[in-house]
């Protein structure tokens, strides 16, 4: 089992009103700090963590940077991003690319795609396959070996 963080639920805990949008740096900072606290106290191995964006209507570049990029910044965690819409991806992908970072995008069919800076993405895939966290499927795609 890998830790599973529902970003929308964290967002709701972080702001006073009902909110569907991950916007502004202060909001992103609060959400990231809550995620970091949750990962620090989990009994599961947080080296690979699933961050689920289901229920989030909009994420802006500032929040993408403050949450996704900064969680990846120290290199201790691999993020599997799930529930990501095309709109979410438009914010997350360039932020990762500009900072030379990469994460895994989990599609609805369970296949994985490396997202971010090309070199970092290729290196991430190699590391995960070598550590048997992910495996190459017969169809040439990538899948998690952990649930």
């Amino acid at each position, binding site marked *: 089992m890998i830790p599973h963080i529902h970003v929308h639920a964290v967002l709701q805990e972080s702001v006073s009103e009902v909110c569907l949008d991950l916007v502004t740096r202060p909001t992103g900072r609060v959400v990231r700090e809550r995620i970091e606290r949750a990962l620090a106290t989990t009994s599961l191995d947080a080296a690979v963590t699933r961050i689920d964006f289901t229920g989030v209507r*909009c994420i*802006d*570049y*500032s929040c993408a940077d403050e949450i996704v990029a900064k969680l990846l910044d120290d290199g201790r965690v691999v993020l599997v991003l799930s529930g990501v819409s095309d709109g979410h991806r438009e*914010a997350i992908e360039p932020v990762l690319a500009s900072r030379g970072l990469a994460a895994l995008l989990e599609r609805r069919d369970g296949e994985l795609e490396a997202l971010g800076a090309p070199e970092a993405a290729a290196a991430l895939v190699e590391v995960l396959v070598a550590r048997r966290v992910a495996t190459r499927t017969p169809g040439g795609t990538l899948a998690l070996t952990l649930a």
Partner: protein
Amino acid sequence: MTRLVEVPTHFDDRSFEQFAAAYAAAGDGTRLLFDAHAAEWASPYGLVGLLAAGEAAQAGGASGAERPLLTAPTHTEVLSYWTRAGFFLAAAELFEIHGKVPRVKPASESDVLLPVTPVRAAEDVHAVVSNLQQRASAILTSELALDPKATMGFAMALSEACQNIVEHAGTGGWVAVQAYNWRRKLARRVVVIAVADAGVGFRHSLEPTQGKRFGARWGDAAALEAALIQGVSRFRDPGRGQGLAGIRRYLARWDGKIAIRSGTARIAIVPKWDDDVPLQEGLSPFPGAQVLIIIPEQGSTTR
């Protein structure tokens, strides 16, 4: 002593220079009278720019606490539109208003996708983005033929433009979003985001981190170039500067335009359908920063 600042009859981003020149000529230390009685039309950019001038005039006035004067438009339709656009709600805090202002609420359903809204803190940005998405998504996709994907990008661009005020202006500002016919070049529908503040401006905000790098070239134009073209930020955090870079990417994809005026300079990323000037220097000084973002109806930009 009271000095007159005439509001252009057609008040948009182009005639703004005429307005800025009149504002600069009026100078500090006197009470200003902004005369909009003859106004026939104003874009969202004009409206939020007028509010920024009002705030700056209040701060720089003779007594400090004395509010500048504003004569409201006399044309009934113009007055009605300014009211529906939420202008007078914001203006009442800044100006001593003369003229009959109708008591109608800002529009809930119309081409005014977001009435003039103050932006002072991150919470205001949340409210702006949420309101825009609730009210405008259908209009953006149906009238402007924007892909649903583009509407989320639009919200992102709006969020980043507003955050620019919160993080850099050192004061509050205003945002307005409207859809209308862009007659100047396109003769098609566009949606416009206008953001203005009377804060410290880009040069002052970036000077501590960028001034030395530019040396003698440093000024309003260099600051705008650094922010919009090079994506630099006053913060040393490597993730900063993503906002304007993201807006640029979004506009490149949807053939949109951005123009930013700050101090004595104005920079624009000009799409093929427009003939704006990419960089202007030596303009009349005007406080803060004013941002204009235009997304055209899709499939309409061939001239």
